């Protein structure tokens, strides 16, 4: 039995569709209810819906053997897991964004609002830049508008939210997509099952 942590939401539904094509169908997951755990004994799989930012924790701690998490989460939390495949979905990018009239005054400490303090710290440390991190949990876009921060470090998909708030992307830090991850010990004890699934998902991605 393979335990799979799926990220709740649109991405998770796309991911499940891929797993279904790869032979890990679990019809009960499509029923409309509030259940979070679904099992198909026939296909040897048990799915959990978890918060996207928690997938890596479930996998690292072995509650799930494998899971799907965004590259942003992996870079922010740096979990001790295997990153087995780029699923080529959920594509977006981690960006620095600021007001359209943003002027980068390098004589001042840059105030950075973000949900991703680790990524922001690493990015600016590489540039030897002193920053003041303001950790927020949502609505990051309003931080520069209200003068809370100079810039934001956040995920940009289409850029519409930024535009609507008079902001613009300034720099791309890295591209993001969904990754198939595995607990390191599960990979060893369920090696055949996990490798077979990775190969099938890899074929689906290439189509």
């Amino acid at each position, binding site marked *: *039995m393979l*335990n799979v942590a799926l990220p709740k939401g649109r991405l998770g539904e796309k991911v499940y569709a891929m797993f279904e094509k790869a032979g890990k169908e679990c019809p009960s997951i499509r029923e409309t209810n509030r259940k979070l755990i679904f099992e198909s004994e026939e296909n040897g799989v048990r799915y959990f819906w978890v918060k996207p930012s928690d997938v890596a924790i479930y996998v*690292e*701690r*072995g*509650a799930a*053997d494998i899971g799907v998490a965004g590259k942003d989460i992996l870079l922010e939390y740096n979990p*001790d*897991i*295997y*990153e*087995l*495949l*780029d699923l080529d979905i959920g594509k977006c990018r981690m960006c620095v964004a600021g007001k359209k009239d943003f002027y980068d005054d390098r004589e001042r400490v840059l105030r950075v609002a973000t949900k991703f303090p680790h990524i922001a710290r690493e990015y600016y440390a590489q540039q030897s830049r002193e920053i003041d991190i303001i950790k927020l949990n949502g609505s990051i876009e309003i931080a520069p508008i209200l003068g809370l921060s100079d810039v934001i470090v956040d995920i940009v998909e289409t850029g519409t939210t930024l535009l609507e708030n008079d902001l613009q992307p300034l720099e791309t830090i890295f591209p993001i997509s969904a990754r198939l991850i595995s*607990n*390191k*010990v*599960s*990979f*060893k*004890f369920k*090696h055949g099952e996990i*490798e077979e699934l990775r190969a099938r998902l890899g074929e689906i991605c290439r189509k």
Partner: protein
Amino acid sequence: MSPENNVPSPEAAARSLCALYKQYGYRHFRMSKFEEYDFYARNKSFLVSGNIITFTEPGGRLMALKPDVTLSIVKNARYAPGVSQKVYYNEKVYRAENGGEFREINQTGLECVGDLGFYDIAEVVTLAAKSLDLVSADRILDLSHMGFIGGLLAHIGAPEAVNAALLTAIAEKNAPYIELICAENGISEENKNRLTALAGLYLPLRDALDALDSLSVSAETDAAVAQLRGLLAVLEQSGLEKNVNVDFSIVNDMNYYNGVIFRGYINGIPQGVLAGGSYDSLLAKMDRRGRAIGFAVYLDLLEQLRAPADRRDADALILYDDGTPVSQIVEKRDALIAEGRRVRVQRGSDGGVNAAGTVDLRGKGGAADA
């Protein structure tokens, strides 16, 4: 994960492991709980975690609660031709891992330091496999070789920062990342394929050797494969080769580790329970001659697999109040203990004590249902 193993308690496992190491002539090494902080500061990147508990002793020296055992053993080892030190330990270490809280960690293991030959290396790997077998039959021992990884990276000849990124990608079995690094740094298609094959390799030791022969690029990588081949022969002679695999995602700091490195796993425990390897480069960094290899077993992790404990606080609960004669309580208590029961005596009510039965001696006392 399927926690269905029946594993010994950490204490019982430690006793069996120490007995095993004694059988192979390893001497018990006891050490002080403290070392000078400076000693760890000089070798910080050798430690699993850089977070160390420090305090100032009355004389003004900055001391540390020991976060590691190996460094203390190596510090005390003296080199002489033809001489090796073989020691085992069962110690507590103190460190914070993965940015978490400080914890006391029980660590049992061994170190073999000095003028070592191939036999000594093979003996330590053998003892690693036997240590896992003492804990559970459902175990895996994975081998990697820093000589092979180092040799391949030297052959590719990328700058140090690129090598560090490649090591991270290999440790994650992250083929897309390896491809990206190779593309960004002009690493040839042939070498990219070697790196992705190395990262993806997960085969039983016997089957992996042929694959490694085809990936070998230099005398250094050839020597690593030859050592792994030698280890297979020794493990086979002792009947220990089953569930011994090759996995190059086990990567240690190349400044300290140079030869075979390994990790041990028990089915149902989501982290490795055993870690070790050859660390001749640490000796060289400390201006010591000779070679060194050892491993540690993290027995606290076994708690994760133990069967649920007895959920009862006692077999019988004796309740009394101020009117109950003490002699009556003692008489009843001793009678129940003589029957082999665990007895809890409590004044007033049961107060949340979970017992199989109650003897109520309150008021006139008497009504027993235990």
